């Protein structure tokens, strides 16, 4: 077992951890750093429940090694709210009842934020294709899409 020391930034804070060289970033987040907001639904990059950002880019943390975080900035669901104030996307997901069981919700929010950071005015089709890697089995996506469109509108200040 090769244990590696890694220095990175998570949700704006300097973090150091040690991990096995074969350990996924998702396992590091959940098991070593106790950030269990990122979920494991498939461990093969198909469900998106483990979505995080790596230097602002959306990735599946189950497809990334913990050691790859060295020197980079990681964003997780735990860092989306601003202190005690929910992010607009989080609030809109609540307002639109855009969750049922809630297991996919952290991944959806991280993915939606990555989209709106890049494209503040996506159309419905762009949102649907961007979220095609985030499986939701409960909602049929309708309310999720509406919530994200509404969040985008509010973030743009329309």
């Amino acid at each position: 077992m090769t244990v590696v020391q890694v220095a990175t930034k998570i949700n704006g804070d300097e973090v150091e951890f040690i991990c096995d060289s074969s350990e996924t970033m998702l396992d590091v987040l959940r098991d070593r750093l106790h950030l269990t907001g990122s979920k494991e639904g498939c461990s093969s990059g198909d469900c998106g429940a483990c979505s995080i950002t790596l230097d602002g880019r959306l990735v599946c943390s189950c497809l990334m090694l913990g050691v790859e975080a060295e020197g980079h900035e990681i964003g997780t669901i735990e860092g989306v709210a601003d202190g005690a104030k929910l992010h607009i996307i989080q609030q809109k997901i609540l307002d639109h009842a855009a969750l049922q069981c809630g297991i996919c919700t952290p991944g959806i929010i991280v993915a939606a934020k990555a989209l709106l950071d890049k494209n503040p005015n996506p159309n419905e089709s762009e949102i649907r294709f961007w979220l095609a890697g985030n499986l939701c089995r409960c909602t049929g996506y309708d309310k999720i899409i509406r919530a994200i469109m509404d969040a985008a509108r509010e973030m743009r200040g329309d």
Partner: protein
Amino acid sequence: MQPVKCGVINNMASGADTKTVKEDINNRMTGKREFKVVGTRPLRPDGTDKVTGRARFGADANLPGQLVGKVLRSPHPHAIIKSIDITDALKLAGVKAVITSADFNKNAKDQNVLANIMARGKVLYEGHAVAAVAAINIKIAMAALKLIKIDYQILPHVTDVDKAMLEDAPILHDDMFTGGLDKIPNKPSNIAYRHEFGHGDIDAGFNAADIIIERNFKTAATHQGYIEPHSCLASSSEDGQAEIWVCTQGHFMVRNLCASLLDMDISKLRVIASEIGGGFGGKTTVFIEPVALALSRKCAKPVKITMTREEVFKASGPTSSMSAVVKIGATKDGRITAGFAKMNFQGGAFKGAPADFGAMSAFACYALENVKTIAFDVVTNRPKGAAYRAPGAPMATYGVESVVDELAIKLNIDPIEFRLKNAVCAGDQSSYGPKFSDIGLVETLNAAKAHDHYNAPLGKNQGRGIACGFWFNFGGATCTTLNVNADGTVTVAVGTPDIGGSRASICQMTAEEFGIPYENIRAIIADTSSLGYNDTTEGSRVTFSSGMAAIMAARKAINEMCKRAAKFWDIHVDAVKWEDGFAKPSGANAGDFTPLSMAEIAAKANYTGGPIAGHHEYNADGAGVSFGTHIVDTMVDQETGKVDILRYTVIQDAGKAIHPSYVEGQFQGGAAQGIGWALNEEYIYGEDGKLQNASFLDYRIPVASDLPMIDTVIVEVPNSGHPYGVRGVGETGIVPPLAEVANSVSAAAGVRLTKLPMSPPVILKAIDGLKND
């Protein structure tokens, strides 16, 4: 034209983006009641935790010193276990426990669950558990699995339902003799049971028909596809007491089954329901929970087991596949004279396929003089089936609603008019026996007919499909308690895990009953040691049963608060009434007292008799059945066979929508799962009896870009079995889509499709067949 047999409806707009159609001819128990909280759309109490990542699901709990549990699974679909040698695995440093079937109570009450959680003598499907280890980390646990030596004697296998019913099929259980026959057979069979329902004389009915259509249908097995894999953390201590933290639809079920499987006193086992990341019926039984508990008991350390996605597909409950013949006869003017269906349900390695529900629900939408359904519950070398949203009904309805569609086309009658001519109404005898009381099928059909979706134009290669669906709904054992806190707020403890927002609806009903704001109520899911037994969250029962129990518990607390006010005012309790959250003197003779709020009464509780609580325990009866009608437009690409869902509308009777947003969510989610079942999803088996697509990449559930917005119409025909008129809404939504998408695609492709899923190759083949004809 007089197609409407059962009443008139008024359309009323209500809610943000939903049209509510409200029956005004009979408000029954709900009277003209004006609701204050019920019917609004407040934020759910668990919502913030779920958008911040704080909510703790099955895999999110840890205990000091916990071990990792892993299960060794059979690579063979059917084999005798000649021997298991765990010696080397036990010797590996870091391994703390290894278990086999010998570690479970062989006299456990449910022998099928016992043999499914850990194979006994024989493995019956690829993925069947044979042993398990607990080790200090996952690497050691995986290495230990490889050190377990199993000597298998491979047996011939069968995974297809029709083949499993043949005389010379490999037999899974030597002690299984077909039930439900006039004579008990003398040879074992893979047919566990023959179910039959119906009434009248179908031969006479078919003789009276001007047109008869008979078709064969097949549907593939599908998985519930919850995004959260099964996960549990079991901790057993040296004195034999234990706790399990688990994502489940029924923690009381987990407790009772585990206690039986491990021969424990129920009182020594406490089960805590975590947040649950989807279930849809698939989390209504146990898989890894007794295994983790047995491992923990062996070494007195906490053991966590989390299934991989591959394990979820291979070893947790898919639903049945089905093979069927459906025959329906009708007169020229569109009256069905007879309906017949024979259906073979493949339910995996143990009996319990939802053949009975399939047979009961197949023709439930229609008032028929002559109807007969026969359904077989058949075992095969596949994982043991589990419930999946309206078990049995989607496939049975698929066959019937496809033939109904074809009849309407052949008779040149509008498909909604055809259904209205035959639809069940209050007072009609159902195809499965009982008479229907207050039901809303006709209301959903009329709402569909009036919807602009139904009247919108279609383009080239596009087709429109409709179908109706039915589900029984369930009540069941329920026990709820609530406490009035010192400040007059209320905590409600229910024993039914919340899989779709039920805590919000239970808070709403409690607030309504007390006459206080929604924000003053908090609902929690109490553990198994804190409440009496509750049936599992299933059968669309929670908002109905736990909600009604909360209403009854609130009424008891209100009675108590009226007594306290009477005591305080020194008047008789009959002179106190409860109104809008206040105890008030009732009538002029009661005396002139300032009304007491809940907060004031609660603050004085310790001086007037102690804590104020209410509880209610019962077997909930009166769960009203539910009907729905769906409309879909599809477009078929003639070159690739790909289907696009262009527009979708769900219309369903909710009785009374407590939280309309979550009712809509159930409608939309059911429709999406049904679309996946119709178009993509399927368990694919090779000749080797092994599952070929045990991943979300190869078992493709609908993604956001596969679907359009899903429009919803909530019909409200109150259920007289509930004080507010509620009927369950969770399951009916998955019943129509299989047939309705097939009807739409058949119209778009110009050829009748009778096999699911309608994947591009299947559609292309059908289109090519048409060209070659």
